[in-house]
């Protein structure tokens, strides 16, 4: 599903972000990607999303290789890989429904199906009563649920989340994690970057990968 083969990523200004990283995430696995700030978590997620290309090595995602996928074909990768951010990245001028519908519109869903599908996704996120609310009227947890609904709009096989609970209180954090486990139970691989070790300990079933200065220093799968 996801393979990083000896991947190094160097940025001109900040230097090496990932150093010869290799890992394999099979279909349907739940992975916590952890490490200090600057350890390479976000870079790893961006490489899987193909928002960045490796300086050397290869990234393979659901049949697409970073070496053979042109910029024009990246949209195909993006439809198989949903992405959720710490800062939600919703369109503030639209409602919750409008934000999800936007993702469906731009990925070519038939006009008549957009509204019912967007409504169904929001219902799955527990937001059926908030579909008409503007983004500014929603709590942080609710905004993140809208962002997850949007990420699921294209029926992806993988869900990436970059510190998705970083801006949320404990209760909202638990709610989002439960949602991720529900999504994962449907067969979707989830890779979540977080530095919250308490949160990681609360879900011992998940695989944990720890990065330090761009290198993989711990893999719970191998430790067991």
């Amino acid at each position: 599903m996801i393979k990083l083969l000896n991947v190094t990523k160097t940025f001109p200004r900040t230097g090496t972000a990932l150093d010869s990283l290799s890992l394999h995430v099979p279909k349907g696995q739940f992975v916590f990607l952890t490490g200090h700030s600057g350890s390479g978590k976000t870079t790893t997620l961006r490489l899987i999303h193909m928002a960045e290309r490796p300086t050397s090595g290869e990234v393979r995602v659901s049949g697409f290789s970073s070496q053979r996928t042109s910029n024009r074909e990246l949209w195909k990768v993006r439809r198989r890989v949903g992405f959720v951010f710490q800062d939600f990245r919703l369109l503030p001028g639209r409602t919750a429904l409008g934000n999800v519908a936007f993702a469906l519109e731009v990925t070519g869903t038939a006009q008549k199906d957009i509204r019912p599908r967007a409504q169904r996704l929001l219902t799955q996120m527990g937001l059926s009563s908030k579909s008409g609310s503007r983004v500014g009227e929603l709590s942080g947890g609710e905004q993140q649920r809208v962002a997850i609904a949007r990420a699921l709009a294209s029926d992806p096989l993988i869900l990436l989340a970059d510190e998705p609970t970083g801006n949320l209180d404990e209760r909202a954090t638990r709610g989002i994690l439960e949602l991720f486990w529900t999504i994962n139970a449907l067969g979707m691989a989830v890779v979540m970057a977080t530095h919250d070790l308490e949160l990681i300990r609360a879900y011992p079933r998940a695989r944990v990968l720890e990065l330090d200065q761009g290198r993989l220093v711990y893999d719970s799968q191998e430790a067991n």
Partner: protein
Amino acid sequence: MPRALSEALSAFRRAPLLTGLSALMVGLALLVLGLFSLVAYNLRQALTAVEERVEVVVFLREGARTVDVDATIETLRAIPGVEAVIHVSKEEALQRALTELPEIQEVSSDLEVNPFPASLEVRFLPGSRNAAAIEEVSNAALAMPAVEDVRYGQEWVDRLFSLRRIGAITALALGSAFALVAALIIGTTVRIAVFSRRDEISIMQLVGATNGYIRRPFLLEGAMTGFLGGLLATFLTWGTYQAVYHFLFSLDWIPGQWVWGGIGAGLVFGVLASGMAVRRYLQEI
């Protein structure tokens, strides 16, 4: 395409102020070009009107034989670019002088002989009123036995043609500079409009929209902004033309092709600027 069109129109509806300001900026940039075109076109018309008066006068020898005069007329008529060769007899020349110069009338009764020579007036076709054609006619006429002299105000004609050349070069240089400034203003204006929607672009990419899908509404929006700006510039140039025409002096309105050329330039600039701005964001993410 209907989706791209409705997206572009909804962008107009969502941010009418920004869109209006963009079109206004494009319009003002193109207005400079429009006013310059108005001035350049009228100067060209004035020069053309002066040029139409360019002619060569071939003075005939006293007592030249009719057969030689006819041969001269035929030779000159055969030169490419010559529109007409008009024979002015001595009597006609005197009559013209009496009509046009009142002082001649006072002394005409004292004249025992008509001092005015017969002549041939050579007129040129539009597009052939140039130094080379004039020289060709002049040389051909001087080689004919019936011809005494040739006059065409060489210095004046040379100056006129120099003025025309300088005018053409100045118009090209200034026109290009104004067009470049207009293009830069339109480019910046459209880029600001695209910048205001960079989040939308990034989210479209995030969820898997194709580059073409993202680009199309922006290209259409750029085209519409450019087109509206072009129309506005035409309207403002027309207003200026009307004001000058009614309150200052008479002048000609620029040809329709120039107007459509200006509107088309606005449209093309808008599309290009939009395309470049979106391309930048598509590469960034």
